[in-house]
């Protein structure tokens, strides 16, 4: 024991009262990350998040690929929300290369983005249900999202990791009966998710578990720099689709949902309200979309921009996703940095879990809309 320890390891002294729990990657309640939780009886004394189990070095690898081959690579942080992850990157590259996206492509991008948002939120809601022990709330969202994944497959060719957005538009046009198919699925989907109110959001046990658990006040939410549903559940109505509209969002009518409570119940309700709003947005977009037109700008091989940098951001399922690209007149970007909503919300975890009961731990930290794979990139 007196030998030199390998770097990064330390010996922990056992305390009389405080027990260190490793809510680790092999845990049915943790996702792909570790929380080192120090517990005093039933109360959490401190919580130290330890992400990085899924860190693949996306940003480093992006420097070795050119703008086009980066597309299937950079969509991997969130595989079922891949359109939203690629969105700021495509917008940024279009600014670097000076491309003008055709109108029909913009509408299709919006539709794909909203469908992806619903698919991601359903999965997150399913896992939230199972963390609270509600197996029906796991099965219903996981089953209902299949219709939207089906629609996305008809649109893009793949169920997840669509690789659909390219700088200059989208890869391919949609099949002929696209509008009818999407509208029918969205109608059914909306009917199904309205039933979640009865079984989940009005469930007295759920309310008693998540009400006033992990309350994040408005000032704290702003100071900690949270984003997405965590921010809107604390009363700040900031949604990039209305504040800094990109593509055709200024022609669509987007309602931003906010709640004032800032507790886990509000944070779990906002994504559901957002899904209902997404259905409306998809319907408007399908209605306003130009019926024909090109969907992609033709690019020369190995396109390159000048010595410039861009920072573009987009509202994804988890919050504002920003992409900072530095270009130096080579076909490969000099630096790509993705600022993801999950990583920005990670700071709330030690902040909120201190002093919470151990039973509230999954209810609080998963309600922050945290996707471990995205946070690690």
């Amino acid at each position: 024991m007196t030998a030199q320890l390998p770097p990064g390891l330390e010996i922990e002294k056992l305390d009389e009262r405080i027990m260190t729990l490793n809510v680790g990657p092999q845990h049915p309640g943790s996702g792909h990350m570790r929380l080192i939780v120090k517990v005093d009886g039933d109360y959490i004394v401190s919580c130290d998040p330890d992400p990085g189990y899924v860190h693949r070095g996306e940003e480093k690898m992006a420097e070795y690929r050119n703008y086009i081959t980066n597309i299937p690579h950079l969509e991997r942080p969130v595989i079922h929300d891949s359109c939203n992850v690629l969105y700021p990157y495509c917008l940024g590259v279009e600014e670097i290369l000076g491309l003008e996206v055709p109108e029909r492509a913009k509408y299709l991008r919006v539709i794909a983005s909203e469908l992806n948002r619903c698919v991601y939120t359903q999965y997150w809601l399913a896992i939230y249900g199972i963390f609270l022990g509600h197996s029906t709330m796991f099965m219903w969202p996981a089953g209902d999202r299949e219709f939207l994944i089906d629609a996305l497959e008809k649109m893009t060719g793949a169920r997840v990791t669509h690789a659909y957005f390219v700088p200059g538009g989208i890869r391919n046009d949609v099949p002929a009966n696209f509008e009818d198919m999407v509208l029918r699925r969205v109608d059914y989907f909306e009917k199904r998710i309205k039933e979640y109110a009865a079984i989940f959001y009005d469930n007295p046990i759920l309310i008693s578990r998540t009400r006033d658990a992990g309350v994040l006040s408005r000032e704290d939410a702003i100071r900690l720099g949270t984003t997405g549903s965590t921010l809107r559940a604390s009363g700040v109505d900031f949604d990039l689709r209305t504040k800094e509209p990109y593509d055709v969002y200024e022609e669509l009518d987007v309602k931003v949902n906010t709640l004032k409570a800032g507790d886990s119940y509000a944070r779990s309700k906002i994504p559901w309200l957002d899904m209902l709003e997404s259905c409306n947005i998809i319907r408007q977009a399908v209605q306003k979309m130009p019926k024909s037109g090109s969907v992609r700008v033709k690019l020369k091989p190995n396109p390159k921009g000048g010595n410039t940098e861009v920072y573009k951001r987009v509202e994804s399922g988890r919050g504002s996703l920003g992409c900072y690209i530095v270009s130096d007149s080579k076909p490969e970007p000099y630096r790509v940095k993705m600022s993801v909503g999950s990583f920005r919300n990670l700071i709330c975890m030690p902040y909120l879990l201190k002093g919470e009961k151990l039973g509230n731990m999954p209810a609080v930290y998963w309600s922050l809309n945290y996707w471990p794979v995205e946070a690690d990139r």
Partner: protein
Amino acid sequence: MSAIAPKFRLGYFLKSILDNTFWGIILLTLVGIPLVMMLLFYLELPVINGKLLSPYLAFTTLADPSRQIPLIKSLMQTDFFRIAAFPGFGFAALVAAGTIFVERKMLAKLQLRVGPFYCGKIEGILQLMSDGIKLLSKEIIIPAKADKPIFWAAPVLFVATAAAFVSLIPAAGNGWVVANVDVGIIAVFAVIGFFPVITVLSSWSANSKFPFIGGIRALHQMVSFEIPLILSVLGVVILTGTLNLTEIVESQHTYWWIVFLPIGAIVFFIAMLAELERIPFDLPEAESEIVAGWLTEFSGMMYGLVQLGSYLKLYAFAALFVVLFLGGWNGPNVWPPFPAEIIEKGIEMGPITARFPGLPLLDQQMLNDVLWFVIKVVGVIFFILLPRGVFPRIRIDLLLHIGWYKLIGLSFVNIFIALGLLYAGVLGPGGIL
């Protein structure tokens, strides 16, 4: 199995035959015959037609089926039948197996999926059997620093206590209960009081953090819900004046106790869900926080035994609820009587008349009782299984709040109602009803 047979040598083959016969003879004489002697000493052999049953007589039943009936009848009166088959372990295990299957199917339909589907021709009937075989074939892993004797004994103790619980519940009138004790209810609660101890033992001996937390939570939960459980039953005891479970059922031959003591029934139901560790009270095995709670370190057949014990407990509690509040086996006599011609004249098949002296095996009243008992138990089990699809898991402090404040309060209200009914002269001895 090796696909390549070793080379055959006649000498080795003969040697193996001789070895097998040698061991067969040794086992038969040194173990088998003493075993048979011991059985013969303790089993009460029946008297058939004035003669004590001998092995020759027993084997003649193979040739003459009509003499089987008295043998079977006498076997059914033994204690061993009551313990092993009905209403003891065999019956309870069958109900438990059915419960597990129905639970999986019912939850699946609730959750818009299919449930067990492929195992067995119709809708996955044989799924349980395959699960049992799978669990038998898994390796049992014991943590290195675990307390081995207690760790091995804990699942067995769990099943034993659950079986002890099952043995106290009457399933039909006329003494169809394994242990007919005069203080039935107190015996039931004494046995229930073992479960927290076994849970804590098994979690402590596993020597790991998550079982530890799960065991402490199980202890808190079970102990704090035992009191409302007992108090809610006091109302029934006050009104019937007896602690014997069979007599409680007999006192409900006109009306069920749930009609007069609904609050007690509700309190008993909720406390029962907590004792059984069913959702919404399944904190001790809360998967998302503490892996599997006090069951974490059990693997293979030990896990299978714990599940068996859990579902035996489920049957026993549901049966207790039926016995105390829903009138046990009382019900309209719908079981058809045994056709009288068969008793007197036998079955006529063409020229041959087969006579079966000693029929009927079980009398009509008993079968009627069993029918109604099973129907009611199935109904109660359905209501126990249903919250699993509807509710999330409750938190420990809310649980203890419910157990210590609300349920005890409600059960005291129930006792006052019972006392009021008794002293107003409505129920009980000398009452109106």
